[in-house]
């Protein structure tokens, strides 16, 4: 039972100091969770701490690969609306697309 940080991570450090098991490590290209140390905070906190502060939707997933913060859960913008907004944007270079 362990959580995983995937490549949507923006390396913002918010999760790292909160982990009760010190399972989160700064790394490149992005932070990672040592699966042998991660307890999903069970016994320590009601909610996994990393996923409770992570500002990026989809960056932390469970063992089944399901996002703890699915699209729309943090911004309040549903995936359908987000797709429409992205289309409406007429910036020439989408350098910083939100997943």
């Amino acid at each position, binding site marked *: 039972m362990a959580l995983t940080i995937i490549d949507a991570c*923006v390396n*913002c450090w*918010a999760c790292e*100091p909160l982990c009760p098991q010190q399972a989160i490590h700064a790394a490149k290209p992005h932070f990672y969770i040592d699966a042998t140390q991660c307890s999903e905070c069970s016994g320590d906190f009601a909610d996994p701490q990393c996923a409770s502060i992570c500002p990026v939707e989809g960056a932390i997933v469970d063992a089944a690969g399901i996002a703890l913060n699915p699209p729309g859960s943090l911004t*309040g913008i549903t995936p359908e609306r987000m797709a429409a907004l992205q289309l409406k944007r007429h910036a020439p270079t989408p350098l910083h*697309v*939100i997943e």
Partner: protein
Amino acid sequence: MAITVLNQGGKTALTGCAASSCGSSADALAQLPAALRAKINNHPCFSEDAHHHYARMHVAVAPACNIQCHYCNRKYDCSNESRPGVVSEVLTPDQAVKKTLAVAAAIPQMTVLGIAGPGDPLANPARTFETFRQLTAKAPDIKLCVSTNGLALPEVIDELCQHNIEHVTITINCVDPDIGAQIYPWIFWNHRRIKGRKAAEILIAQQQKGLELLVAQGILVKVNSVLIPGINDEHLKEVSRIVKAKGAFLHNVMPLISEPEHGTFYGLTGQRGPTSAELQTLQDACAGDMRMMRHCRQCRADAVGMLGEDRGQEFTLDKIEQLDVDYAAAMVQRAKVHAAIEAKRAAPAPITPTAPLVTLNPQFRTSRPVLMAVASGGGGLVNQHFGEANEFLIYEASSRGVRLVGARTAGRYCHGPAQCDDSSAQRFAKILRVLAGCEVVLCAKIGYEPWQQLEAAGIIPNSEHALESIETAVAAVYQELSANGRFSAAAVATQRRSA
């Protein structure tokens, strides 16, 4: 430097505020108690006059954040971009201390080290306070300050005091949780993510408590507010009244930055930022109650240099790692430079024959207020070539005097590498947008072509006051053009209407 008074015998009870109560101008500062004056005398963000002479730097040691604001995207990093929350590299406390000493030695007029992110400094207490602890010991001639969203503030007041921090900035966008819920989607609080109105309620309570505790400790508090049209614009007047009543020293209302390219909630959903005129109107409305900051440049969390300039690229990690700074020697040099700056500031402003300052002819009392843009490279002087100016200080001249009302940047927003190399026509169009509402541009020099372009746009270029003090020059031009009837109440220029 004294405020330039055009019409001492004139009526002062007009709309808006008297010059002496606006901004942290030199004149307003003269009314403060000596101890307070000493605290802000060389702080470029707390004193408008100081920002002409002294520089600041931010070190990006605080990446984590404990809240989400709709105007922030934690993903963004572009070295061409200047706005809060953006940095090029996050530093460890040791690296930050090394960088600070290197900058302090190379830019002796740098007096203030701030920690402002790119997340929230107090959500990174270990990194933030380790940086402060080392700098308190190693660089006692540098003022330390911190900028926070306030959520973790009440719990760290004692620690802030230990590190000799005299200046704190809290970003307070609202005091009403219903408005807060439209600005903050969530906070991280007591090990839970809290969303909606409840989140805003907690954040607001913590901010207000933090403000009260800081004031009780004698720490100067500046309140930053982001002006979000349609969401908190009218509400900010109430914010200003409340924070003043609680003892905040200065209120800085900043325009929302919400370019779609930034990928923020507001950027994506089309929430617009305020126009320059809307910003100034709100600042003026708050100014009746509160000392307002007008010279903010909304700088990056790793900015280095005078406000409005960023010399961060001269002090990247690979460059500073080779350096071995003798800080004891640097401190001696810094003290000399500071003394020279203070001597210059103490000297009376030179009065030129073209600028008789006081007692306007009564006919000018009917002249309306006029905005003038000034190209200045620092020192409080009209000393920059028009073509080199990336930003303009905006002054308002009226029969009651001259005051700074803002600073506008032509090249702040990055729209991606494809648009970073503007053609001169694009650049000029951008500058014209920046100058909206201004009727005169004062600069040290200007080429023939831009001179003609400005005139065609209804703006009067003027380079006759090169190297004069800004306020003296603005007063002289206002007087001269008023005498020609240019600014009589009836003669409203097209520029003014289109602002």
